[in-house]
């Protein structure tokens, strides 16, 4: 499939020149094209933030919801129509801060969706406050003396919760990031891809060069089925490992667990209430025996 198919004509893109969001958009389109996912079958779900605008910049069905709330609707959309490919994509503040509770519980629920997080370690849209992943010492107009909160470690949290697929990528490396995204989409179950993304406007600490210098790829000796090893790797920083940390292929998905597709694969919109059954159910309330 040609990536052209995902191009949107005439969109006024609201990102700053040089922003790491641009390569992520390009990489995502390539990954989708290589997986031959039809735009009509794809639902891009996001919250609010600079990263969260991405659904508007490619051809897809779009659910651009509230700040922090991408995962609950994404889960519901997949459960309502499992034939759709569902990607929930937003920024680090959105997914790990405002939406932190959903992040935890969506992992536990394990819907078959892909969760892409543009991790620029800052709040871009609101102009430069600390995000949950901001590094200590990072100075902002609010964190005037520098961040002193322990940075949130999304990968370690996800692995601790036995997430079924956990990876980290870097927007500066198109080829590897594309492969990771493709694997995440193909993976059956919840898949987290945290992508390091330089914010050229508000994060002068974690720049393109900084990410380049402070990351390295997990090599072939890393066994993604080994949860303990994956956890240990996830706790490493400066340099931060990149790649697929952990895969648990055996987990049942939310759509499988809810059970309503076992005998009937039809999505909910094709179904009608069973009035015969409802009649029988109501009759049980007449209590005649």
């Amino acid at each position, binding site marked *: 499939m040609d990536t052209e198919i995902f191009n949107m004509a005439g969109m006024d893109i609201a990102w700053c020149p040089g922003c790491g969001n641009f390569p992520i958009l390009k990489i995502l389109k390539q990954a989708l094209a290589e997986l031959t996912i039809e735009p009509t079958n794809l639902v891009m779900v996001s919250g609010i933030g600079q990263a969260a605008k991405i659904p508007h910049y490619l051809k897809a069905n779009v*659910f651009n*919801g509230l700040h922090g*709330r991408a995962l609950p609707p994404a889960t*519901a959309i997949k459960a309502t*129509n499992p034939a759709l490919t569902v990607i929930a994509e937003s920024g680090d503040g959105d997914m790990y801060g405002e939406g932190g509770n959903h992040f935890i519980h969506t992992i536990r629920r394990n819907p078959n969706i892909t969760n892409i997080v543009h991790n620029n370690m800052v709040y871009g849209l609101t102009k430069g406050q600390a995000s949950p992943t901001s590094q200590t010492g990072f100075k902002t107009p609010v964190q005037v003396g520098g961040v002193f909160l322990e940075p949130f470690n999304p990968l370690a949290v996800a692995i601790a919760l036995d997430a079924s697929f956990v990876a980290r990528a870097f927007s500066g490396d198109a080829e590897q990031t594309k492969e990771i995204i493709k694997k995440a989409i193909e993976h059956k179950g919840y898949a987290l891809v945290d992508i390091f993304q330089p914010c050229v406007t508000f994060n002068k600490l974690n720049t393109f060069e900084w990410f380049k210098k402070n990351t390295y790829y997990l090599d072939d000796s890393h066994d993604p089925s080994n949860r303990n090893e994956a956890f240990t790797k996830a706790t490493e920083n400066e340099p931060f490992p990149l790649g697929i940390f952990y895969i648990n292929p055996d987990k049942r998905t939310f759509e499988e667990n809810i059970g309503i597709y076992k005998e*009937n694969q039809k999505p909910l*919109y094709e179904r009608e209430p069973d009035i015969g059954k409802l009649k029988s*159910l109501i009759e049980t*309330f007449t209590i005649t025996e």
Partner: protein
Amino acid sequence: MRKDLSIVLCGQAGQGIQTVEYLLTRIFKLAGYNVFATKEYMSRVRGGINSTEIRVSSGPVCAYINRIDILIPLNKGAVGHVEKRISPQTIILAEKETIAEDFDQTRHKFIDVPFTKKATEIGNKIYSNVVAVGTVTGLFGIELQTVSEYVKKFFSSKADDVVQKNLAAVKEGFNLGLGLADSSKIKFDINDDADIKDQILVNGAEAVALGAIAGGCNFISSYPMSPSTGVLIFLAKQAKDFGIIAEQAEDEIAAINMAIGAWYAGARAMVTTSGGGFALMTEGLSLAGILESPIVIHLAQRPGPATGLPTRTEQADLELALYAGHGEFPRILLAPGKIQDGFYLTRKAFDLAEKYQIPVFILTDQYFVDSYYNTACPDLSDVSIEKHIVQTDADYKRYKLTDDGISPRGIPGYGKGLVAVDSDEHDEAGHITEDLGLRVEMVDKRLKKLELLKDESIPPELVGSEDYKNLIVCWGSTYNIVREAVKNLGRDDTAFLHFKQVYPLPGQTSDYLKKARRIIIVENNATSQFAKLIKLHTGIEISDRILKYDGLSFYVEELAEKLNDLLK
């Protein structure tokens, strides 16, 4: 002689009062009696004192009364709990030892019934509640076999030994009841009623949940909170049979965002919650407003602010539901009065939500969801649900500007088009925009639907003479209480007007109110929220207000008395 008897059982949480209520109401129904039951309980799992009122009658009974004809206190302190409701006519059936110090036995009609003694003889005092069930059924002369079979069925999942002991308990109690009947110490004249055979016995929560199924509900995401949880539990139990996704969300924020996502993808979704939980949903409500997403919200009210009285009742979240959510967008507020309304309004809520692509509320309260009575089986002859989903074309635009403000609603994966919805202000295609002219068009488009809603509103129900001089106004769960109170007044110059749609205020409202010489409003809240709403939309001020906000619903008698005082 009494044609209608009010039996009140009182005991600690964990003493099986709920079991007694369940068994007795069903056995009465089975034996052909009209029955009503409601409970008041403390927010605790053990201890405290809870009570259940069961009314049995030859004719229909649907409302809470103060009078207690037979009181069965099952533990120490239980009598004190309902003291104000005990009159010289109240017969207290209790075990001397249990309640000896609780009241002056010479001043009350007291009959010593050895519930616990019999239970202990059978093997454990925990059976005393089932002995009580036997006693009441024996008193009514219901056939022992009918009673035993039902009790057996109820305990069928338990170990055989437990079943046998419960059956023994019921039989012992039954004989005690027969003895009481023979002694003529308790007199009443209540007959069974052939008309109720085909009727159903459900509580408000069940009526709402059944209505949801009839309305095609196939997705419910919620977070437990009394008194709203019954609907979630009911639908979870039916999930497999009816293909419903019933998910307990991590919080109410997730719950409503899931439900909106589900509608987006083609489900018919609802949430059930109470005030505090709904407060967390308000941003999601506003999201439904801008996305033009249908959503059905069952809001079971309890007294606030904050945690308030978790297991009690109130009608104080009308304004919350009405004004919740930032920004301006249309909504509908429905408030069932009769149990049947719970069914029909919830079913209709799904069609209204889908047709107008707006939030629709079902406003109930603890009194409504926890009260039972026998009522006609809902009419399922016209059960077609209105679906308004369109198959999209390649150039589909989710927010196409139309004359009436309603854009055809497509869903992803059905048709050649793309469906984009956005919580930002958006263009017709659903993409983020800051075109301020378009902004105005979109606001107008959304609000236009309010005009359409006015034509479709459910009219208020006038009960009583058309030529009323006095008009009692009420809404939601107070319907049956007001009905019985007004009937007891016995005045042909007085009618009452019940609103089951409280917003948008039905068009007929002004005409009804203008005809009255005197208007009295009855609300289970402290600030008369509905009167304020009426004033806002009709200019008519209702200054005669009967308000109650102690956490309990009105009793028929107190309401009749207050009305009488005002109308004197």
